[in-house]
């Protein structure tokens, strides 16, 4: 316990040092929340990595655990797999979201309807959609509707490409609504004059995207895009529910760890949690993952500032070298591309324009080498350093160019393609909903589904839920958690974001929130539980609510801060001259204008709270406090060795979706017009 208090004290000092200059009156509430729920657990985790730590006994072992983690080939392999997967997810998510956003903007009729369809996956809790998608994809040993359509077997436990790509697709499907919303918001910042000009110049859709939309929206949407990439790096639930880290790979069967084709770092650490009770070792693995995230964060930070190309190139070189040395990069071969990047840096400092070409040449060699190695050794030859270099090279070669389409494609083609694409996406949104409906109205407890309508129809599943499983009580608990989470976010994030807009000193807290959000995850839940025990927040809905709020803080902050920044400063200055206090300016000027943006934040937090599953699972020990997510999980149970009630699960999912859908309908106008037109990002 003395170790716990010492770490609490030290981390409080570090936190104060990092955030002290932030205006405390407005930022204290958020700072307190972030410290308790995100920052302290991270410091605690880092501390115990230096100990052999079994709860209630700790023995200092220095760097032993960290060295164990750094030298585990299983962890390196898992990091490579995760980085490749995260890159695929991000690329697909960006492409699909851009196309959907452009389609919504270009439609004269039904654009709001289409927007609601695009947002629908957001309204289905992830654990429901993942399970339903898994059944649809894998069917019977890989034989399913999809396998018949595409002419191949999708056995997720043995087909490596299928497992890798389908998990990526599901992640994209789940992430597209939010990404589309962000991109649509950023598109609203493009001046109508520029849009008109592009039309007058006769640019085709491809040229408009490459010369108008991408250059103008990417920098604005970048914070969210980057957070989304790092979020994919931490992904756990999709793998856990779909593939459990498999299929197995010969190269991943090591003495120290077992890594399958979809063993992301989240799954890897979870598996460690099950194979050892020495939490110091688990913490050490988490620290190593944290180091990787930190390096990525540094590159992302430098990536943002267009003029500081030297910082970007330097950080890429350093990251390349570190990853090569550690074993998650290109190994000794990494010297070759690094040489190119070094020369590129020299040319940049001499203001020679062809520094970009040299960098791109280096990245091409890097990529060619990685692909060659992959053809020989498979996924274990993925190089994280190459992936980073290629992303940087793509950006450099894209910037400042005018893209001309050589194929003059008629407009009719674009319209046709748009219709086909939108129909396809609408079907993908509809498919899981249909599956859930099927289960809910079926007498038989059946999944996967292989007919369009259930053979026996019943409404009994719904009444059973209310009578036997206390669905109403679960709904009430979920609502309470959501209200606590939303209120906490409003009361903490809004004043802090306003303070950051009003005074540059307060922006530091934003940085700390991002830092904390990147490092939190499965591995920080244990220290968080210790903290909650200490504060008597275990087994309370309030505890769940504030935990959800803290975990939604980063995205909420970065949804709100840019919006508040975009409000003309002269309003604030005029009020200041009139003698209005900070509090008055915040509540009388900024708050009313920010309501559309706050609505989006509210909806985002509501979704997070409603779908929250891990927190209740860990922190609740009382049946009467269970929210809907836990009740639905109970219906599935420990699948494989117990009996799952899919039809009741379907009925519960439908009711859950109806309630969320109602919230969507109520706030529809704000989501579809308010924030979008104000440039919420």
């Amino acid at each position, binding site marked *: 316990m003395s170790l716990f208090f010492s770490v609490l004290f030290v981390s409080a000092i570090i936190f104060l040092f990092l955030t002290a200059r932030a205006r405390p009156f407005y930022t204290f509430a958020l700072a307190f929340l972030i410290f308790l729920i995100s920052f302290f657990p991270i410091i605690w985790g880092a501390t115990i990595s230096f100990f052999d730590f079994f*709860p209630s006994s700790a023995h200092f072992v220095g760097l032993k655990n960290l060295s164990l983690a750094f030298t585990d080939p299983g962890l390196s392999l898992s990091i490579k797999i995760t980085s490749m997967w995260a890159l695929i997810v991000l690329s697909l998510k960006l492409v699909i979201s851009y196309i959907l956003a452009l389609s919504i903007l270009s439609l004269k009729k039904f654009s709001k309807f289409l927007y609601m369809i695009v947002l629908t996956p957001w309204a289905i809790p992830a654990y429901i959609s993942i399970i339903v998608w898994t059944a649809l994809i894998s069917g019977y*040993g890989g034989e399913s509707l999809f396998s018949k359509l595409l002419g191949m077997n999708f056995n997720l436990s043995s087909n490596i490409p299928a497992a890798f790509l389908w998990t990526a697709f599901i992640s994209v499907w789940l992430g597209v609504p939010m990404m589309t919303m962000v991109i649509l918001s950023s598109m609203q910042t493009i001046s109508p004059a520029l849009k008109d000009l592009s039309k007058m110049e006769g640019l085709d859709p491809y040229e408009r995207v490459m010369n108008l939309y991408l250059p103008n929206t990417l920098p604005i949407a970048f914070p969210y895009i980057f957070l989304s990439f790092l979020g994919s790096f931490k992904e756990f639930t999709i793998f856990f529910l779909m593939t459990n880290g498999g299929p197995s790979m010969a190269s991943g*069967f090591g003495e120290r760890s077992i890594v399958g084709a979809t063993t992301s770092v989240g799954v890897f650490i979870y598996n460690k949690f099950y194979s050892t009770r020495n939490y110091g070792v688990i913490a050490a693995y988490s620290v190593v993952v944290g180091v990787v995230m930190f390096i990525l964060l540094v590159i992302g930070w430098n990536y943002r500032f267009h003029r500081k190309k030297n910082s970007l190139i330097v950080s890429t070189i350093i990251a390349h070298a570190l990853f090569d040395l550690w074993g998650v990069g290109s190994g000794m071969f990494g010297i070759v591309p690094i040489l190119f990047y070094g020369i590129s840096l020299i040319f940049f400092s001499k203001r020679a324009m062809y520094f970009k070409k040299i960098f791109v040449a280096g990245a091409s060699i890097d990529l060619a080498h990685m692909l060659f190695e992959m053809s020989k050794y498979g996924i274990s030859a993925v190089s994280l350093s190459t992936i980073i270099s290629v992303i940087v090279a793509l950006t450099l070669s894209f910037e400042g160019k005018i893209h001309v389409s050589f194929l003059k494609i008629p407009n009719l083609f674009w319209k046709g393609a748009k219709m086909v694409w939108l129909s396809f996406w609408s079907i993908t949104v509809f498919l899981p909903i249909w599956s859930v409906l099927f289960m809910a109205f079926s007498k038989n407890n059946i999944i996967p589904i*292989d007919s369009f309508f259930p053979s026996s129809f019943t409404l009994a599943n719904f009444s059973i839920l209310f009578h036997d499983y206390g669905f109403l009580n679960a709904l009430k608990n979920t609502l309470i958690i959501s209200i606590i989470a939303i209120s906490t976010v409003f009361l903490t994030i809004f004043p802090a974001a306003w303070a950051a807009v009003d005074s540059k000193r307060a922006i530091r807290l934003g940085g700390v929130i991002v830092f904390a959000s990147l490092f939190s995850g499965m591995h920080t839940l244990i220290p968080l539980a210790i903290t909650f025990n200490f504060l008597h927040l275990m087994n309370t809905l309030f505890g769940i609510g504030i935990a959800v709020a803290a975990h939604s803080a980063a995205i909420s902050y970065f949804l709100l801060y840019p919006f508040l920044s975009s409000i003309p400063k002269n309003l604030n200055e005029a009020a200041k001259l009139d003698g209005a206090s900070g509090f008055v300016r915040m509540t009388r000027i900024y708050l009313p204008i920010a309501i559309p943006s706050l609505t989006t934040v509210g909806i985002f937090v509501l979704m997070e709270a409603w779908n929250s599953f891990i927190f209740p699972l860990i922190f609740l*020990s009382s049946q009467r406090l269970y929210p809907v997510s836990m009740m639905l999980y109970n219906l599935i149970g420990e699948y494989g*060795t117990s009996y799952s009630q899919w039809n009741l699960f379907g009925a519960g999912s439908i009711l859950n979706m109806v309630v969320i859908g109602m919230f969507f309908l109520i706030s529809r106008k704000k989501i579809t017009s308010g924030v979008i037109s104000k440039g919420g990002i």
Partner: protein
Amino acid sequence: MKKVILIFSLILLLTVFSIASTITVWFSWEGQKEFQSIVNEFHLTHPNIRVNLVYIPNMIQKLRITLASNGSFPDVALVRNDDLGMLTAANVIKPVKGVKTADVFYRSFLVNKIEYAYPYYADIQVVYINKALFNGIPIPKSSWTLSDFEKTAEVLKNNGHIGVLLQKSSPYFFDAFNAAFNNGIIPEKNGIPWVNTPGTLKAAKLYNYLFNERKIAVSYEKMALVNAFKTQKAGMFMMGSFLIPDFLNLNLDFTILPYPSLDNGKPIPPVLDSKGFVIFNDNPSAKKFLDYVTSAEMEEKFCGSTYKLPANENAMRSLGQKNAFFKTMSLSAKNALVLPSSKAFKELYGKAVSTTLNLYLSGEMPLEEAFRKAQEYISHHK
């Protein structure tokens, strides 16, 4: 006068509730409704003990996290027998004394010869027979052999159905075959599971023969496995007895058989998936509650409706006469495989064996190399 009686009754009621002790019970797996009704009955007969019943979707996950976070354990929790190693190593559960139960259950909950749980019930692996697909095919007798099993599966396959369904990479299924070639046990040396034995290799070869050479066995993932049987795609299905109530509710035309024996007469021992109540403190109310729920009458009530094999001998005897399902389950229990309760078995064996089977059966790794690597993984973490 009425007012006085009313007030007196209220005071009495309040007094009873104020001196009532509350115990928290974590319950999991099937039978939530049935167990709740037993708790309700307990409340009627024991008004001074309140039971706070909490249904836990994934018990081992919850216990591990509680352990890791130094959190509060309940008074009582229902656990699987192979979870005991972890709990005793962490020194959080108390030994129990004098719990009378069937021998196979008694052995299930021993750690270092000390009994650590009130055995409650078990699911036992059986072979489900889809009678509708056995049109003209004789249903084997309960004394059948592996050859009978293969022949039946072959005929079913030739009739256009799946011969037998099971999950090929799951240790839950493999354990029975593994034990069949290892004198009825999962081999261990000094508390470490041993997977590199000739018997284990033989079991894996048999799997390869069934799945890849004769192709009479088919492996699906979790959800599809049960549904393929329900929708009459498969003639035989190896699984725990916990699915019987679901199949009965669906009015499926099915029966169950015990696992066949090897051709040399040695049984393929079905896994006894036994659950028992562990206690985390010396609360006498918890003991009273457990004596109540594990009594013959209550066990019969719970297991009779959920199709579980009761740990209480009297209840088992009584239910064994109830119908053909219980008869077969009782028969299977005679040869049942009690899984090791060691920490290493729970934490390492499953992952290693599952990976090994996947790699070997998909042809990605030779048999000996795959099992050697599995052993290295297990031994490294001991």
